[in-house]
């Protein structure tokens, strides 16, 4: 093949296919450039950075929603996925779902920072560049299709986060938190990079969809667990998972989380707790599916995945338990919410554990006829959980930020008597807390039931998953006490005299914002169908679910096909429409 045609096909791939599908990310990039330019030309005095950032993120959100609408309007697109930028990224409904998730969250966070004025006018461009840059990294995490991008995206997310945690320059706590975060982050990234190098060295490819194929070739039915390569492989997988676990703040990689949250402003803490979780779970799901592939692996490889799933389940159970128990003694609300974040990461991780067990286990009920369906359900439960988590956790952090702006306090006991001063805020906080516990009719309940249902289903594939289910259910009870403790202060205790009263009526900007973020928590618990449908088709569009076996394509041929949409077999369309429906 002549060089010119190589360049031509590359151009075609980049300009014709990839860039239009990359529109959201481009909008963010453009906003970042504009923010920096405006600062350079002193235009930020006239147009505040916050407004620019808000406009940019709304544009990004709009583009992502348009991509979603395109999918929902054209039926033949459903379940199709496109590899863009020569296979480095993947574009499917799962990507779009997380894009909308992240962009919506970004819009809400930018708006919150505008209201609260956490970066003053002087610092605003810097802050928003960091915030947008970090989100850009998360968008890449959500669509990563290559181990290289996995690492790059995680780093791109992390580095601005470190700076954002330390953004309150005057506070010692803030700098200390940032430093801790950097050290942990660097360590985790190093381990992950080593894992990636082992993995790609062992399997001869770093492209996620090809991993499973290579793995089957390496593992095969006749392989044995004592093979050194299998051991190395397990080690490599674990090392990659360490990097993801760091982003998820899963025990034992959670130590940075309470300190970072306490040191950072509430807005940043809320951002870190929700957005990085969404992106990291997307990445984790993609990675796990890439490892298991679409066909059920055979031989010892199978045991590896069931054990891996169960092991992740145990880590999830420990995270949930540890997070919930450690949250008891906290007196600072941000620290408490940090431990609550750890616990919720545990619950969500249970869905991933269930996914791996369902895909890997040799003893499937009904001969495995519904394996894919159950696996899709596990992922869609996780996706639904993420959306609910976005609103309930952002709601809690937003209220913390609002109260901080009034009383300059983040101690739980200083929330005493809030209901007498600002009933609207107290009721919004109540909804968020009860949703975090998982009480109906709030979204937290529905999402928890979805995750537990998947774990329950996985017990039929592998019975020890019962332990994970019991741990999850018990933790719901554990978590009650510390969430309700906050409500105890807000509703049962008289206001503290030495503090400024919190005066936030519903009709103020703060009050409206709190309502705007809390109302979806309730709606997600009552009107489940719409988002559940979208989450379901997003999960079903994942490549491993829509393609039975990885299609034939030649590894040695360097210019890969620019568009590798999945073959139009009847399965994806069917799988995308929910099976039940009364």
């Amino acid at each position, binding site marked *: 093949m002549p060089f010119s045609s190589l360049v031509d096909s590359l151009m075609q791939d980049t300009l014709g296919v990839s860039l239009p599908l990359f529109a959201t990310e481009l909008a963010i990039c453009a906003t970042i450039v504009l923010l920096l330019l405006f600062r350079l030309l002193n235009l930020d005095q006239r147009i505040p950075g916050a407004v620019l950032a808000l406009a940019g993120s709304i544009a990004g959100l709009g583009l992502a929603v348009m991509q979603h609408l395109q999918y929902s309007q054209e039926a033949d697109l459903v379940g199709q996925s496109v590899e863009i930028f020569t296979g480095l990224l993947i574009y499917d409904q799962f990507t779009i779902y997380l894009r909308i998730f992240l962009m919506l969250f970004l819009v809400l966070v930018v708006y919150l920072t505008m209201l609260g004025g956490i970066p003053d006018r002087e610092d605003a461009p810097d802050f928003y560049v960091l915030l947008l840059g970090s989100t850009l990294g998360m968008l890449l995490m959500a669509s990563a299709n290559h181990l290289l991008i996995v690492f790059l995206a995680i780093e791109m997310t992390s580095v601005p986060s470190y700076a954002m945690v330390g953004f309150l320059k005057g506070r010692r706590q803030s700098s200390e938190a940032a430093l801790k975060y950097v050290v942990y982050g660097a360590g985790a990234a190093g381990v992950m990079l080593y894992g990636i190098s082992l993995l790609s060295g062992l399997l001869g490819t770093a492209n996620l969809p090809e991993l499973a194929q290579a793995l089957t070739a390496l593992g095969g039915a006749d392989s044995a667990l004592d093979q050194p390569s299998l051991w190395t492989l397990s080690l490599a997988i674990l090392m990659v998972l360490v990097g993801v676990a760091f982003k998820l703040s899963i025990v034992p990689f959670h130590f940075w989380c309470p300190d970072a949250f306490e040191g950072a402003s509430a807005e940043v803490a809320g951002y870190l707790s929700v957005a990085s979780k969404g992106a990291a779970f997307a990445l984790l799901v993609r990675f796990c599916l890439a490892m298991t592939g679409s066909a059920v692996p055979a031989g010892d490889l199978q045991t590896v995945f069931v054990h891996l799933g169960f092991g992740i389940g145990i880590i999830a159970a420990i995270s949930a338990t540890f997070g919930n128990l450690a949250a008891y003694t906290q007196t600072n609300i941000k620290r408490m919410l940090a431990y609550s974040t750890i616990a919720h990461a545990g619950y969500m991780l249970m869905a991933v554990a269930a996914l791996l067990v369902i895909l890997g286990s040799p003893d499937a009920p*009904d001969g495995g*006829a*519904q394996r894919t369906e159950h696996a899709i359900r596990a992922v869609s439960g996780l996706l639904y959980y993420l959306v609910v988590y976005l609103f309930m956790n952002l709601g809690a952090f937003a209220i913390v930020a609002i109260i901080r702006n009034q009383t300059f306090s983040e101690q739980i006991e200083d929330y005493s008597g809030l*209901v007498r001063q600002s009933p609207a805020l107290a009721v919004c906080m109540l909804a968020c807390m*009860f949703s975090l516990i998982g*009480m*109906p*009719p709030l979204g937290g*309940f*529905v999402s928890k*039931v979805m995750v*537990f*249902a998947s774990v*329950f*289903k996985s017990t*039929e594939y592998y019975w020890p998953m019962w332990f994970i*289910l019991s741990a999850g*259910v*018990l933790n*719901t*009870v554990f978590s*009650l*006490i510390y969430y*309700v403790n906050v409500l*105890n202060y807000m*509703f*049962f205790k008289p206001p503290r005299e030495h503090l400024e009263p919190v005066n936030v009526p519903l009709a103020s900007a703060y009050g409206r914002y709190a309502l705007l973020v809390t109302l979806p928590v309730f709606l997600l618990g009552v009107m*489940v*169908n719409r988002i*559940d*449908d979208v989450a*379901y088709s997003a999960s079903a569009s994942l490549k491993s679910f829509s393609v039975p076996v990885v299609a034939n394509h030649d590894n040695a041929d360097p210019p890969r096909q620019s568009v590798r949409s999945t073959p139009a077999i009847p399965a994806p369309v069917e799988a995308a429409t*929910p*099976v*039940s*429906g*009364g």
Partner: protein
Amino acid sequence: MSNEFLLSAIIFLPTVGALVLSIMDGGAEKALRKIGYFTTAATFALTLVLLAEFDSSVSGMQMEVKAEWIKNWNVNYQLGVDGISLTLVLLTGLVCFLAMLASDSIKKDIKGYLILFLLLETGMLGVFLSLDFFLFYVFWEVMLLPMYFLIGIWGGPRREYAAMKFFLYTLVGSVLMLIALLMFYFGSATTTSPGSFDLLHLARIGQGKVPGLVFSETLQMTAFVLLFIGFAIKVPVVPFHTWLPDAHVEAPTPISMILAGVLLKMGGYGILRIAFPICPQGAQWASYVLVFLGVLSIIYGAFAAMAQTDFKRLVAYSSVSHMGYVLLGIAVWKLSEGKTVGAEYWKMGMNGAMFQMLAHGISSAGMFFMVGVIYDRVHHRDVNKFGGLMGLMPLYGGLAVGIFFAGLGLPGLCGFIGEVFTVLSAWNYHPIMAIISASGVILTAGYILWTIQRVFLGPEYKGPHPEAITPILPREAFIGFVLLGFAILLGVYPESMFGLMRESINQLVNDLVKVDMSSLAGVNTLLKR
């Protein structure tokens, strides 16, 4: 009003009232209270309409409503009423109305109080009327939040502790129920259809009436244990009862009335509506334990009540004792070699248990109200520091003694019928159990008579604030008369309630008796070996 709409209207009318209240000015106390009276009265009136529309000769569900809610999970908004739920809905409407009348003593944050009160009523009515397990669970939990705040904000000195304890206990029960819910859901799935939350459909599967679908014995036993613990906490059955005295003592009077009058019935209702019909094999397998726990509750509750000096705690323990009869009556399912022995007795026990729930709803609400009336005046509840109230407040004394006699189980009053029916049916199950439970009646008479003696009789009042003892107000007397009136009505004409629920209960027993228990006999012998 069309019947399809009636059930939803009953459930959500209090919510509408709460919404109206939430946009009103918190200072307009009189107007707020009026909305509260009006909403509960209208809800009670709607339940009476339901009574008029109800056909008591039909054993199955009536006025069923079914609409899709969460379609991917096959969750439906499904309501219906039969004899079992109708009577409890009536009780809820009545007790809530009377409790609202009794709420005049609440002065603090009346707006919030009324909103939570009405939300609580929605939750309770929803539990009794839903036919979808998921919906049932949602209502069951929805009720927790208002209750927590009603105890925690308007309660006595240890209110936060009591509120948290109540919340924790119920949540433990709920999560166990959640596991059972998932078991049923996935157990009822086939290759062609997803699982179901429809309680009637699940009951048919559990009773082996759906071809090709069974709940295995293991599933039924596990699910039954999970469900039973969840409901037993609510009833409460003895090892799970410790939340109740605290919650009752700390709760304000009207909330105590609701707690004893309605909330405890939700446990019994859950056992009748969910645990027994869906897991007959599990229920039969556990029946010895259930009967034992029932008898234990009767005796333990009575002894504990006897030892109390706090008037409210005493009444709270009497609730534990009285609810023991409910469990006893439900559980007396005697099986011999795979065949039910004396199904007629079991029917009697079931009917008695249901009647006991209604009677206890009337008498315990009345007793808590009577304690509240005197507490509002003298601000203490030490039984030993009363005395002579009959002379100081003759009308109050008369009403209170009447209601306490109803609780005692005096023939001619409501408490008698339920106790007699359950104890008689227990004889068929096991004579010794019947004898022990019958002796509970004597203990009950013991502690109630002793209480009456210490509080109402005697020459003089011995406690603090003698000057505050004023005659009973007309509003209070009205509540007392209504409750005593119902206690007498149910006592002399029990058919008024039996007539409504007999068909449904007998149908339930007949269905359960037909369930094939042969495989269970194998399990039992295996266990005994």
